[in-house]
């Protein structure tokens, strides 16, 4: 998976630079709101589209740039993340878990949007979407325009992906 050359040119960002923004945003969100310090393992060695016992939070961009930023993590890790965010024990997939993962995606989307759009009015963010399940796949229709960063925290892995396209 790599960032399409047209996207890299239009955003004026190399894949490594854009990955750096996503890594910084993820680490900032986790350190301030989740009270955890994930380490990145960029680059991703193997493309990942199939997830088992996992949860995915996504926020879309529309406007000058369109795309999706997403966080994918095992439910076992999502429970730890949610418990740490809320300061309460969360031990099942419920509204709190879905809301917490959606809010992380929302904050990541906001951080990336700030890089793409200094003013903020030419790129709109969607309301977060969360999916979870025993076995599901997530596919981008333009997966070549994608940066995916693996992270490790409390011994478990999660992924943050960014798909971008220059608007019409």
């Amino acid at each position: 998976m790599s960032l399409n050359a047209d996207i890299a040119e239009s955003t004026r960002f190399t894949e490594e630079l854009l990955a750096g923004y996503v890594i910084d945003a993820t680490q900032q969100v986790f350190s301030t709101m989740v009270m955890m310090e994930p380490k990145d393992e960029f680059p991703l060695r193997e493309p990942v589209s199939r997830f088992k016992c996992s949860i995915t939070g996504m926020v879309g961009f529309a406007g000058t740039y369109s795309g999706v930023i997403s966080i994918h993590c095992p439910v076992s890790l999502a429970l730890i993340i949610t418990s740490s965010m809320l300061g309460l024990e969360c031990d099942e997939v419920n509204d709190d878990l879905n809301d917490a993962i959606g809010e992380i995606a929302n904050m990541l989307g906001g951080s990336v949007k700030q890089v793409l759009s200094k003013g903020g009015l030419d790129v709109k963010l969607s309301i977060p979407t969360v999916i979870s399940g025993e076995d599901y796949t997530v596919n981008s229709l333009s997966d070549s325009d994608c940066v995916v960063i693996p992270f490790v925290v409390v011994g478990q892995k999660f992924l943050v992906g960014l798909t971008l396209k220059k608007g019409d």
Partner: protein
Amino acid sequence: MANILIVDDSSTMRKIISRSLRQAGLPVDEIYEAGDGIEGLGVLASGKLVQLILSDINMPNMDGLEFVKAVRASGNSTPIVMITTEGGEEIIAEAMSSGASDSIKKPFTPDQLQEKLGKLL
């Protein structure tokens, strides 16, 4: 001590903001919550005394910008601070010109809340 209204569609974020307000040592009494601008207007219309409003921008049904305009149109001058992932200069300028008092970017720390909100309470 102040009563605070938090308007955010994320229940997680409302809990985090509530906890952070107390961690920051701000003089907080009652905290009221609303899931969007329409609910926020409902809280204000119910007659509850509120000394500070904290509002997200990106929300369903009625977003934070519409909410600020509606509050000001009703003649309510309670300080409104936007707490949002939407940190773009133009969006913040629009919020401020609509009547918001200040803005805080998510993610935030309790110290940042203290710095921005301490002067309003």
